[in-house]
């Protein structure tokens, strides 16, 4: 399933999550290699966030395993999370902290000190264009800025693996474009997983897309291949066809 001859950075094997009798994620397996941007698509409640939470080591899977750079996210969690940049759903941040204060906290946790810490924070602020609001408390910012603070936190340590849960949600078209450009620039050196229900994002940034419905993978293909799955060639139709069948 992974790109041929490339370094596999994310491995997911038979990941399953049940909540009582409800199966949120059902035996999901895939790999992501360096240089890939994997779009994780699916209707609301399909299991996108649950899968990403398990990949980030936050949620304990009922069955299966996830590895980041070979580190099991459960048994070797700290090592796995060291090389991971994760943007949780809704980009939660500590509202009472200033943007810089929050990023410095994350940088300190990640072991940076002194001038290196200042440089890292400044670089992350630059990448996400947050310089103008850097001294404001996060809770006073607009939704788009908050999302970018979450993104800055994920990019801070220049991790080889990025897992971003709806990174462009709540951003205006210009900001969306900037984030997509940023993802595209980082792509060659990283394995990136983004979840989205905005289909235009697939064509814009993804090298591969997985469609998930009712917890199961229903398609794993390049954007071009996905387009061919519906007679109309439209992603909208492909998406509806795939996810309604499964539901």
């Amino acid at each position, binding site marked *: 399933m992974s790109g041929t001859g490339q370094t596999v950075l994310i491995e997911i094997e038979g990941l399953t999550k049940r909540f009582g009798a409800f199966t949120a994620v059902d035996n999901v397996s895939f790999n992501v290699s360096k240089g890939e941007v994997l779009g994780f698509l699916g209707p609301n409640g399909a299991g996108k966030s649950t899968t990403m*939470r398990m990949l*980030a*080591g*936050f*949620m*304990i899977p009922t069955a299966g395993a996830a590895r980041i750079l070979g580190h099991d996210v459960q048994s070797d*969690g*700290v*090592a796995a*999370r*060291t090389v*991971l940049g*994760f943007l*949780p*759903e*809704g980009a*939660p*941040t*500590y*509202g*009472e*902290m200033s943007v810089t204060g929050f990023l410095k*906290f*994350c940088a*300190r*946790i*990640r072991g940076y000190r002194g001038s290196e810490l200042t440089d890292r924070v400044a670089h992350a602020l630059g990448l996400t264009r947050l310089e103008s609001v850097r001294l404001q408390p996060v809770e006073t910012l607009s939704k788009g800025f908050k999302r970018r603070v*979450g993104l800055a*936190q994920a990019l801070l340590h220049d991790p080889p693996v990025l897992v971003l849960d709806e990174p462009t949600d709540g951003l205006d078209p210009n900001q969306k474009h900037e984030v997509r450009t940023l993802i595209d620039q980082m792509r060659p050196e990283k394995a990136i997983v983004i979840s989205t229900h905005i289909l235009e994002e697939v064509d814009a940034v993804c090298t591969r897309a997985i469609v998930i419905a009712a917890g199961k993978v229903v398609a794993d293909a390049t954007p071009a291949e996905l387009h061919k799955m519906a007679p109309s060639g439209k992603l909208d139709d492909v998406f509806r066809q795939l996810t309604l069948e499964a539901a």
Partner: protein
Amino acid sequence: MRQTLIIAGRELSAYFATPVATVFIVIFLVLQGTLTFNMGNFFDRGQADLVPFFNFLPWVFLLLVPAITMRLWAEERRVGTIELLLTLPITQGQAVLGKFLAAWAFCAIALALTFPIVLTVRFLGAPDMGVVATGYLGALLIAGAFLSVGSAMSALTRNQVIAFVLGVAICFLFAAASYPLVTDFLSRNTPSLAEVARSFAIVDRYQAFTRGIIALRDLVFFATFIGFWLFLTTVLVDQRKAD
């Protein structure tokens, strides 16, 4: 350890970034002052010591400490920041300990601000400063014990009111276990339980400190007590973080 302290530092500054710190410290000082000077007959006793002050302290802590701890984990889960915190490269134990240390340091600050009472006693007479010092150590330990219970209750639920009520209730059980009302009742009905209750009587052990006695077994008790509840917190956080 470094990560634990970074978390503790962030947490502690969060108390002071909101009115929580001011409200807590003011109410604590007003309550302690009123109880010591008015209800404790501080002046009529004619003794230069802090007995009335230390007698009321566990009961004031009983009410106020769960108010600090109720937001510890419940708030992180409600806002969703727990997902951010626990996907940073730290262990859950470090997060639990860091948050606990912040709350403990906060209690220490509140306690330190009661210094005018000590100055008053020194001005009026010649108190045994050794006893005052062990009393404060005991106060810090009982605050730590209540904090560890409160932290577990906060990890149990995402509702802060429930966390507060459960925290007060459980701390009350341990605090009341020292009192004749409970011990007499138990020894009359279930003598075997009375022994158990007495060994967990947290206020008894605290009162030894206020009399100037530092016993190793009391120190071990407090360390074990806090360790147990923090371990329970870690287990609860792990189980319930993603609910």
